[in-house]
């Protein structure tokens, strides 16, 4: 379980998060929604300790996160932008991350699943965007941690890969994991999320099930419901 307590974060004068309180349940898929620049990635990076918040605490399984970051061994994280050292090969990169984390990993099934075998010896700088994202996915899912955090996992994927990803997420959910995901693809979110939060202007605007959001906004589909919130807020 992840608990966020009164989280504040600004970059310079730019206030991004102004008091976020959130409890993410132990099991199931939890989606974070919000417009571009609303601070989804910032929130995720705060959980991971990659961003240092001004104020607020983060607890994982009741334990306050330590600044040494060693608690990250229980978290598999997929970054929004797959930035890899360009001079490494795919196989080398996978090997390196395994060596650095020093835990049990199973990459072969994932390499098969995403059809990455032909690219194993290619340099990362020579891969297409979607292929890089597949490598990104392999690096995330090859470990078996209790918490999985996915920042825009669908970016650049073709329909086949997307289906694979959905299956993969469902399998992990069935293992009883905590899965945190952000996405702008509403159909994707609707298909997988048990609960959503909507981040707006530094705070949590809505938290609940998709059904509750529909009722609140009187819209049938999620895309319109979200658009509705945004319009209301601008008016």
């Amino acid at each position, binding site marked *: 379980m992840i608990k966020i307590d009164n989280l504040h974060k600004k*970059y310079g004068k730019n206030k991004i998060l102004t008091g976020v309180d959130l409890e993410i349940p132990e099991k199931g898929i939890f989606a974070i929604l919000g417009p571009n620049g609303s601070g989804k990635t910032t929130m995720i*990076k705060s959980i*991971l300790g*990659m*961003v*240092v918040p001004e104020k607020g605490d983060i607890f994982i399984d009741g334990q306050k996160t330590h*600044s*040494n*970051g*060693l*608690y*990250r*061994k229980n978290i598999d*994280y997929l*970054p929004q932008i797959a*930035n*890899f*050292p*360009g*001079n490494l090969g795919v196989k080398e990169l996978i090997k*390196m*991350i395994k*060596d*650095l*984390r020093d835990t049990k990993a199973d990459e072969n099934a994932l390499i098969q699943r995403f059809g990455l075998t032909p690219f194993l010896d290619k340099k990362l700088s020579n891969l297409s965007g979607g292929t890089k994202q597949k490598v990104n996915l392999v690096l995330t899912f090859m470990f078996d941690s209790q918490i999985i955090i996915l920042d825009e996992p669908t970016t650049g994927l073709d329909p086949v890969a997307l289906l694979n990803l959905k299956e993969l997420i469902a399998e992990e959910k069935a293992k009883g994991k905590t899965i945190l995901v952000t996405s702008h693809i509403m159909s994707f979110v609707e298909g997988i999320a048990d609960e959503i939060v909507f981040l707006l202007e530094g705070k949590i605007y809505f938290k609940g099930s998709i059904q509750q959001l529909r009722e609140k906004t009187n819209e049938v589909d999620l895309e319109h419901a979200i658009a509705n919130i945004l319009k209301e807020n601008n008016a």
Partner: protein
Amino acid sequence: MLKILKYSFYDLIRSRWSYVYLLFYLILGFVLLFLNNDLSKAVITLMNVIIILVPLIGTIFGVMYYYNSKEFTELLLAQPIKRSSIFIGQYLGVALSLVMSLVIGLGLPFVLYGLFESSAIWDFSLLLITGAMLTMIFTALAFNIALYNENKIKGFSYAILLWLFLAVIYDGLFLLSLIIFETYPLDKFTLIATVFNPIDLSRILILLKLDISALLGYTGAIFNQFFGTSIGLFSALGMLLLWIILPVWNIKRKAQKKDF
């Protein structure tokens, strides 16, 4: 941290620039020995080259590596690894690979020339030690500059300016102030001014060891007079060590607070 060091070190060993650097020192070593035909004379020429060039190379490699390994760093930051291990590991990877190029590149020609039978061996060793320390110092300073500047071009410019200042401008300003304040007793001022410049410190360290009073100059003479040769030697070494420790400590401190 050792794992990070290993990966950074291998990464650099595979890069073309390490070999260019190594080759440069090999050639320099051979040419100096060929021209001077005398080990101890070559050591003095070498000192002048080392004191100016080693800081420059350390600075450039330091900033370049920091900015070029941004992706690697980002990847590491998401892993269960301490931030200090990431940055200190990378720093040591760069610094040690540079030190290795220096030691091999200069050591090889001199050893082939009969260094081990020569009396210049201690002078030469001190030269290498000083070179190694200057590498550690300037790589650390470069990492500091890069950590404070997101903008690559800015970071690069500041790093080069720092080198230019310490290697060239500092001495000029120092001489100028000696002329202007001619009538005041300047011993303390001179000592302090030297301590704040690792390049000057290195020069004095080597000249004290070589015991060439003619080359020691005003600063060196004061150093000599103030501490005596052996204490002067050790205090200069100690201060160079501080010049490594403080910037490295600040790398750790700054990295802890930074957002990625």
